[in-house]
C-alpha cells in the first residue's frame, strides 16, 4: 500500500514537473548579474577564470560561510564517531603492491593538488578541487598501512591557521579602506601565474583548509570500529 501511494505521488510529481517544463521560457534565461560580472571581472580582479573571481571576490563571504559549514560537518562527524578503542581489532595488512603504489602516488598527488590550487585563477580548478586531491594524498598512507594514523592535533592546527589566513586577508582589505574580502595587491598581467592580487593566496588558504578538514574526516571514518 505504501509503495503504491509513493508511486502515485511520484507520478503526480513527474506530471507536474513536465507541465511546468512545457511553459518554461528558454529564450531569456540569462541573469543580469552574470552579464555584468563577465564584462568587468577581468579588469576588477585580474583573474582569467571568472568563476574564481565570483567565488573569492564577489561572493567571498559565501565561501567563508561554506568553509564554516564544512568545518562544522567535519567536527560533528568526528564527535559522533568518537575515538577508537585501544583493543579494537586491526585491519589486515595491505599487500606489497598497495604499499609501493601509495608511496609512489603520494608526491605526485601532492604536486597535482598544489598545481590545481595555484592555477585556480587561470584555468579550471582551485582550492576545493585541489584540496580534495591533497586530502586523498594524505589519506593514501592510511589505506596502505592500517596501523598508522593521522595526527588530528596537527590537522586542527593547520586547518585553524588556513582559516585565520583567509579571515586576516579579508580584514587587511578592510584596514586599507575597502570592503571585507575585496581583492588586494597588484593585479598584474592577465593570465600570468603571479597575478590577480590576493586571490591565489585566498585559494591556497581554502585548499589547505578543505584538504586538512577532509583528511581528518576520512581518517575518523576509516578508524571507526568495524561491526563485523
Amino acid at each position, binding site marked *: 500500500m505504501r509503495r503504491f501511494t509513493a508511486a502515485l505521488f511520484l507520478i503526480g510529481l513527474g506530471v507536474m514537473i513536465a507541465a511546468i517544463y512545457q511553459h518554461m521560457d528558454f529564450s531569456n534565461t540569462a541573469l543580469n548579474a552574470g552579464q555584468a560580472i563577465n564584462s568587468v571581472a577581468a579588469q576588477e580582479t585580474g583573474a582569467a577564470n571568472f568563476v574564481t573571481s565570483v567565488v573569492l571576490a564577489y561572493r567571498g563571504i559565501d565561501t567563508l560561510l561554506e568553509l564554516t559549514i564544512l568545518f562544522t560537518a567535519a567536527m560533528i562527524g568526528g564527535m559522533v564517531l568518537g575515538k577508537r578503542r585501544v583493543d579494537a581489532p586491526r585491519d589486515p595488512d595491505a599487500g606489497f603492491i598497495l604499499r609501493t603504489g601509495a608511496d609512489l602516488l603520494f608526491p605526485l598527488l601532492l604536486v597535482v593538488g598544489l598545481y590545481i590550487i595555484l592555477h585556480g585563477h587561470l584555468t579550471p580548478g582551485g582550492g576545493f*578541487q585541489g584540496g580534495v586531491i591533497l586530502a*586523498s594524498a594524505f589519506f593514501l598512507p592510511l589505506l596502505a598501512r592500517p596501523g598508522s594514523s593521522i595526527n588530528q592535533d596537527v590537522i586542527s592546527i593547520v586547518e585553524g591557521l588556513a582559516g585565520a589566513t583567509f579571515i586576516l586577508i579579508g580584514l587587511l582589505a578592510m584596514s586599507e579602506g575597502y570592503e571585507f574580502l575585496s581583492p588586494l595587491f597588484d593585479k598584474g598581467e592577465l593570465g600570468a601565474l603571479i597575478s590577480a592580487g590576493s586571490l591565489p593566496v585566498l585559494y591556497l588558504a581554502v585548499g589547505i583548509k578543505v584538504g586538512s578538514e577532509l583528511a581528518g574526516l576520512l581518517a575518523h571514518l576509516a578508524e571507526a570500529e568495524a561491526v563485523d
Partner: protein
Amino acid sequence: MEVVVLIVVIVMLLSAVAVMLFKDFLAALAAMTVVSLGLSFLFVVVRAPDVAMTEAAIGAGLSSLLFALALRRLGLWRSQ
C-alpha cells in the same frame, strides 16, 4: 553531439534507477559513481569546467570513498 549527450543521459538515469534497485550495496555504490561521472560530463557540455572538475574529484572520488568506508564499517560490504 546531441546523440552522445542522449546516450550519457540514458546511462545516467538507468544507473540512478540501479542505485535504488541493486540488493548489493557495493554495486549500488558503483552505479552511483557512474551517475557522478556522467554528471561531470554534462557539466562540461553546459560549459562549466570548474564544476565538472569539482564533481569528478568530489562526487565521483571522495563521496565514493566516504560511502565505501561507511559500508565497510556498517558491515554491508557483501550482499546479505
